[in-house]
């Protein structure tokens, strides 16, 4: 179902009957299938969809940035001028001048061996006759306009010296250098922390009005869509299933897939009857400190240290679900590793059931490996690609020599059943599974040993929203069924909010706020918590314009 919406004036960009085929093991498949849409001048259209919905391929088609082997048919016109079928030379004159693009990961999108200045000046000089001196001045201006502090110093920086947010600002500056009429932003904030995401979205909104830019934004995040879009096109399996004004999409979604996408975001609190025993915590950590040495720059230079965890106290009760929220580099994952006994604190004590955490050589440490399990962020790299699913789930039982060999298979099958995977996956290799299925296997592998404590390090960050919602529901259920304590380490506020009993906010290695989840979210006390909560994307376009807090 493709609805063409027509503005009063002629559209700036018109895409009609766009089909993109990509090679696959089963022959060529149409990853984008007969997609049509218009973008009016000054408008922001969001293409929303999940992994492999074809949204990025659609965006890449507009600038013909495909890798070799991808073929495109259909029509794309800019101001009435056809774009598809232009030669590389003809297209080069349009790219960056009329249409610019920014990408999901900004640091790898910049050339690692050139300074910011070289790359910015290059972008300025391609489409204009301008002296080197004037181009440098222009580059400074651009960095200023995208809100980079100390632009003179940043001009001389290499990409690896920039943070993700700063690199994205540089990308935006580069994209705007020739004042294009259309800016394509492919998931520009997905790789960023939530506070940085809020800043970049603010910047894009600001630039949009200042420079009168038409924006085509690709996103999987309905929150970002709610913040930015005038109109929304929902893509599913290579087709646009619904297109319309943003309020209409949020208030009265017609297509079942759109409804599912929106439902996945709705913050359902998992009601739990489990009584948390507060008297005897399972884990009791006091004054944890973990430092890492920084690399030395010069011979004989005193070695400086980075304090990743700085005096942290944590209690985790039996059957309790505790959330650690914080941004990348805040030290939250390190805390998780310390509590698991996989890393040793430089100071502080950890007691498990009142006894000291055993050291590496202690036989009790090995027993701890059975009781304490972990689930990682990226299920794709957490599974051995060359071992069949059932074997991987059975392996922990082999390692700890639990039960007879024949029973182990049954145990592994039961664990898979518990996470909602039936016998059909047993003999498959991980590559034949979807991301959600892989994460289920990872969870089954952790559950098979019936652990008492499970650390989930960003358990849904690598997954699509709808799949993530299923995994969250699964975690809530297995926690209930297995009487485990759970530590959820995440930067995702909505995940933490829906799942955990008690939340701790980590900032620069310290716990700055701690309390019952609902209480913390309703009335955050620490300024950093307030910033974090106010940076979370809105849930509905009508919430736009609510003032955001400044960065602390």
């Amino acid at each position: 179902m493709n609805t063409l919406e027509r503005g009063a004036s002629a559209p700036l960009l018109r895409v009609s009957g766009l089909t993109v085929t990509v090679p696959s093991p089963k022959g060529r498949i149409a990853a984008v299938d007969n997609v049509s849409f218009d973008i009016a001048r000054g408008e922001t259209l969001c293409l929303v969809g999940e992994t492999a919905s074809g949204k990025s391929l659609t965006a890449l088609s507009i600038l013909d940035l495909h890798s070799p082997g991808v073929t495109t048919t259909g029509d794309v016109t800019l101001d009435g001028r056809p774009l598809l079928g232009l030669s590389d030379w003809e297209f080069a004159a349009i790219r960056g001048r009329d249409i610019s693009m920014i990408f999901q990961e900004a640091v790898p999108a910049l050339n690692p061996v050139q300074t910011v200045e070289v790359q910015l000046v290059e972008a300025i000089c391609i489409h204009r006759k301008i002296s080197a001196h004037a181009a440098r001045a222009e580059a400074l201006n651009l960095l200023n306009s995208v809100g980079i502090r100390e632009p003179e110093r940043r001009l001389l920086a290499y990409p690896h010296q920039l943070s993700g947010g700063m690199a994205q600002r540089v990308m935006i500056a580069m994209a705007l250098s020739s004042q294009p009429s259309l800016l394509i932003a492919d998931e520009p904030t997905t790789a960023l922390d939530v506070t940085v995401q809020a800043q970049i979205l603010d910047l894009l909104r600001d630039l949009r009005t200042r420079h009168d830019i038409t924006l085509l934004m690709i996103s999987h995040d309905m929150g970002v869509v709610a913040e930015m879009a005038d109109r929304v096109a929902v893509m599913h399996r290579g087709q646009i299933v619904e297109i319309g004004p943003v309020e209409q999409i949020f208030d009265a979604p017609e297509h079942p897939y759109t409804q599912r996408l929106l439902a996945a975001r709705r913050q359902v609190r998992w009601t739990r009857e489990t009584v948390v025993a507060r008297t005897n915590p399972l884990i009791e950590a006091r004054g944890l400190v973990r430092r890492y040495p920084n690399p030395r720059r010069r011979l004989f230079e005193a070695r400086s240290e980075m304090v990743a965890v700085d005096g942290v106290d944590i209690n985790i009760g039996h059957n309790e679900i505790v959330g650690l929220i914080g941004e990348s580099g805040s030290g939250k994952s390190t805390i998780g590793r310390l509590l698991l006994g996989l890393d040793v604190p430089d100071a502080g004590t950890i007691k498990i059931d009142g006894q000291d955490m055993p050291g590496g050589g202690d036989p009790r440490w090995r027993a701890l490996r059975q009781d304490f399990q972990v689930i990682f962020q990226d299920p794709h790299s957490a599974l051995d690609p060359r071992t069949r699913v059932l074997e991987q789930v059975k392996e922990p039982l082999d390692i700890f020599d639990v039960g007879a060999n024949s029973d182990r298979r049954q145990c592994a099958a039961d664990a898979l059943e518990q996470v909602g995977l039936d016998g059909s996956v047993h003999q498959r290799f991980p590559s034949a599974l979807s991301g959600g299925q892989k994460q289920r296997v990872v969870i089954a592998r952790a559950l098979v040993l019936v652990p008492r404590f499970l650390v989930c390090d960003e358990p849904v960050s690598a997954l699509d929203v709808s799949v993530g919602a299923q995994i969250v529901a699964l975690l809530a259920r297995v926690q209930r069924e297995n009487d485990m304590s759970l530590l959820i380490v995440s930067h995702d506020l909505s995940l933490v909010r829906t799942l955990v009993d008690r939340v701790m906010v980590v900032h620069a290695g310290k716990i700055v706020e701690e309390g019952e989840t609902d209480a913390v979210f309703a009335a955050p006390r620490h300024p950093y918590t307030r910033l974090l909560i106010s940076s979370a994307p809105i849930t509905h376009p009508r919430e736009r314009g609510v003032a955001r807090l400044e960065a602390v």
Partner: protein
Amino acid sequence: MSRLIALRVLRGVLTVWGLLTLVFIVLRLSGDPLEALLGDDAPPEIIDYYTTLYGFDQPIWRQYINYFGGLLQGDWGQSFRDGRDALEVVLERVPATLQLGFAAFLFSLALGIPLGILAALYRNTLIDRFAMSFAVLGFALPNFFIGIVLILIFSMSFRWLPSSGTGTWAHFVLPVITLGTAGAGSIARFARSSMLEVMNRPYMRTAQSKGLTRPRRILWHAVPNASIPIVTLLGFRLGDMIAGSVVVEAVFAWPGVGRLLVNAVTARELAIVQAIIVIVTITMVTANLLVDLVYAWLDPRQRDGADDRKR
């Protein structure tokens, strides 16, 4: 940077010392140098005289200490045959080997890198197939075989080029091709895979989206990035050029260190073999140090220490 250099130099000194110790012991275990010098039927008093003269009557650890003591004072030992200083004998051969090795190195660069880049840009076409067939052949064929075939064709049949000796540029042609072909092959393969990887990097798409034309994208964005891993390989190849010259110098009667080494080993000229080992090792270590410096110059990420990105 200074830390890097200091570490490398220290490691280099240790490498030279370790290797020299090994060679010192192996040479003395593997046969009697005086037998090779004096022959089987030398009278015992002559043998005794030389044994005492060169200190072979002393325990091996004392010989070892004496040798290193001398080395630290600049005494590299003497050739048994004519009593000349070992270092002097070796050094007069070094220029010839360096000339040949360096010319061959340049040849393999000049051939290998363009070939690899072309193969990557025209992936899966005839150009690619041809370039890679050459690379595999060049790498797989032993260089004495290439040398002999070249001599057969260009010296014996056509009589275009000399088959041995030095003097004119024409003398360089066949040895350089022989010595450089294997290097060109492996450099070409490496340059190809390095280019292919770089071409798929996100920044190449950025370069395209900025409006750069293909030649500029390749020259300004792909090649500088692709050259970083190639430089690592070049360090090994530069070393190989010196080491590989042993065979090639023998085939083309090139008066370099390689041929000297072969002769010295046969004649059990201990001091000369040891001096060559030291010189070759120093060359290798220096080449690797140079590579590391070039690496740091090419890749800004290396300049900032190991990795200062956030963990």
